[in-house]
């Protein structure tokens, strides 16, 4: 697992309007009073402060693509029609992980227990969005590293549960990223715990490395 590169203490740039969108905010129609907007902003900031964001990735060679199967160098088989399509010009894959740590879920659960559901729902949406943006950061970082080698990442990434890249395949990505080392467990239904954790895969193409 020495191939896994870790990025800690991250403060990713994120798109706040996506947090509002997760909460059903409609730019043209939703009216927010000043105090409500202030409160939402404070809660987003609180989520940001409570998250302990870590990103990680490893780059693996692709053995072959046999749609819908994508077979990695170590024999790991992933399957998904759109995943295979995404990887079609690639010779390597990048497996990524992002986690916001356990404190954020403790906060969300405590707020719910105290009946402060409106606060919980904003923090929950913010935590999801911000954790997701860690993967954007990982991809930007890797792209920058690849650029000088004439290589580039696919624009999109897929997480298990997307289309026919089913959630069961979370097990494979979890194993490849050694999720346990990041304090993440995988339950029988293939859910990551703490919940604000995400795994994903993207492809790398361009000039072939030796």
């Amino acid at each position, binding site marked *: 697992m020495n191939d896994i590169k870790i990025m800690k203490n991250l*403060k990713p*740039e994120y798109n706040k309007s996506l947090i509002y969108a997760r909460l059903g905010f*409609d730019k043209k129609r939703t*009216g927010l009073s000043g*105090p*409500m907007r202030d409160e939402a902003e404070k809660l987003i900031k609180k989520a940001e402060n409570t998250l302990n964001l870590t990103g990680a990735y490893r780059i693996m060679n692709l053995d072959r693509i046999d749609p819908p199967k994508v077979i990695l160098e170590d024999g790991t088989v992933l399957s998904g029609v759109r995943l295979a399509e995404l990887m079609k010009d690639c010779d390597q894959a990048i497996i990524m992980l992002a986690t916001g740590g356990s404190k954020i879920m403790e906060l969300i659960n405590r707020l719910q227990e105290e009946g402060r*559901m409106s606060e919980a*729902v904003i923090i929950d949406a913010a935590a999801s969005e911000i954790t997701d943006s860690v993967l954007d950061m990982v991809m930007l970082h890797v792209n920058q590293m690849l650029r000088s080698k*004439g290589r580039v990442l696919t624009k999109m990434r897929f997480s298990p549960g997307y289309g026919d890249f089913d959630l069961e395949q979370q097990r494979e990505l979890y194993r490849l990223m050694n999720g346990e080392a990041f304090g993440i467990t995988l339950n029988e239904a293939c859910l990551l715990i703490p919940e604000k954790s995400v795994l994903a895969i993207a492809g790398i193409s361009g000039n072939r490395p030796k």
Partner: protein
Amino acid sequence: MTKKEFKKLFNNRIVLLDGGMGTLLQKAGMPDGVCPEKWSSINSDLLTDIQKAYIQAGSQIIYTATFGANPIKLSEYGLSEETFDLNKTLAEIARKASEVSMTKTLIAGDISSCGSLLVPFGSIEFEEAVENFKTQIKGLLAGGVDLFVIETMMDLQEARAAIIAVKELCDLPVMVTMTYEGRRTLMGSDPVSALVTLQSLGADAVGCNCSAGPAEMVDIIRQMKPYAKVPLIAKPNAGKPRLENGRTVFDMDPESFASYAEVLVEAGANALGGCCGTTPEHIRKVAEAVTCLKPVKHERKPYSLACSNRKTVMIHTTLPFAVIGERLNPTGKKALKEALISGDMDYVSDLAREQVEAGAMLLDVNAGVPGINEKETLVNMVNTVCNAVDAPILIDTSNAEALEQVLRIYPGRAVINSISGEKAKIEKILPLAKKYGAMFVLLPVDDSGVPETAEERIEIIKDVYEKARKLGFTKEDILVDGLVMTIASNAESALETLKVITWCKNRFKANTTIGLSNVSFGLPSREQINSAFLSMAVACGLTSAILNPNNRQMMQSVKATDALTARDKNALAYIGQYSDQDDSAQNSAKTGKKTSKTLYEAIINGDAASIEDLARQALISGKPPRLIMDDELIPAIQKVGELYESKKYFLPQLIRGAEAMEKAMAVISPELEKDSGNISGNKGTIVIATVKGDVHDIGKNIVAMLLRNYGFKVIDLGKDVESSRIIETAKANNADIIALSALMTTTMNQMPKVMSVMKEEGLACEMMVGGAVLDSNFAGSFGAHYTNDAYKAVKLAESLINQSKNGG
């Protein structure tokens, strides 16, 4: 080349740098996957040809082909042992290109990222990074480079490590360009904070390269220009990369690329070049475009600039007053002292956040606890503060060793608190401020003690400044401490401080600070004295103060004096902060929310603070509880639902309405029960759960809350619930509906299982389901009803129960 000669190079002209190297090496035959530095050193003629082409195109400075030639990066190819030799050879090759071109070209030793992240983002320690770069720099120096360029840096701290490495080995000029992903570098630095940090640390030119095309770089240069003391560099890519037949291609042709030269120069660039995808032809076109262009003259803002790696604070008499948080100083603070002794950095982190949230723009950090390792503790505190907040810091210590350690690792431009006229401080600490480019607080005391009069203090200020000026400091680099002593022991002391501040503003033209609370030491009601003195000092021109930002009265004084002294133009910040507060309603002022006048209004506004009182008042007025429900509560929650449905409210507003409703019901229900014997006019019983294996329950909890609001009896079984328990509960309570939630594809299949047991058991109830991955087709496939949001779930439940009552 001396730094002076380098500076002169930019006099009245635009300096031309070189362009991309990687793609040209590939075109020259470099195979995929090899170490470019090693290959270039072996195929030196091909490299010389490329560099010659750049010189012929007009490049006045060419970079050595040593982008990745640091030991950590070379280790990817098993070549770290060759670092010195490779760098020396590649520098010599560049020199040869210059010589054969018969053109006087400068050779810049190229340094870039080691490819691994530094602490705190990764595992490379700061000193390890410095040593890594030093190995490379030694090779480049042996190869005879004229200057250095540190380029394509994503992390300001790594750029700092490289600058320190250069400075500790030679006096050659050094240019630094960061790479920006939009508005910030990947690790979060904005262009101004990067500029301030780098130019203070000794970079002789600063700018940006790679990632963006020329159009995107215009704004980055424009942002930096008002604060730049050094020439600015723009070295963009030839547009955005795209893939063609498995190869990365940059599309922007030389003419289009060069068409941005004028705009970049207008924005403030002093040097232009190209990065990925650019060729000698691109540089030739830029050379033609800049022939008639001169660098723009600009007036640099006379602000004192301190920054973290993510944020710059500007201090000046025309800008809003800078509050420096005082609470990270353990003197007289038992809890902080204990936290520092036990190493409880969470406490430090909380204190940092609390102060910044209350309005502190900078934070004073002090680890002066007797008996602890000050250096270690101070470093821990500073690392913690950097991680918790964006505010820059004042390093409050007289321990030179601890100070140097923090200055070395602080990823921005810190302020040293303080340097006085004492000989030891001048000798030890002023050179540290110089080496690391820090600002400092100038404390007007000397070896003979604390002068009582303003005149004596002014003499010390002049003397210390003169010594600092000789080292290259300007007045913008200092904050003069007005030196506040308590008026309890000397009635004139506050007036003497005000004289110093006035002199600094009107004559000396330097920014000022004070440790505010000293003024009232030993007096009762200290807040009033502090607050009054602060207003007086600001009126005299004080630009910052170390105070407790969590003291409301003090912060109100700050905001008010900013408005009164026109630092807050048109009082916009003041109005923004206080316009929601109503003096006549202290209670609501605390929360910034308006008090609702009726129960209906309170639910619409989600006003949980007022609703219980309003519900009690409604009962006291003698209105029957049933009428309170029917006339006010139910219409209000229905209205909230409509507002949500029409997207005039977003989800938190819907929930806040429901929360207010719940509070009102808690007051009304007991009376309703006495009145009618029926707690809530039960519309029906619903057993709700998140299915087995699924741990996401926030959506289910919202639905449960709303269903209760709308008069259903809800039995919430929680998350990860076994099918058998759901069925047993539904049976025991004669439920009308079983409501299930599942967020994932792996757990949604539990739903049909519950349905099949339900049928086997002969339960007559309906099933409604919801969750991110479900749809009506899936629900319909096993006879359940689907809903995709909380309010629609209420509507669905009402309709299912009505159908059942009507025999549907």
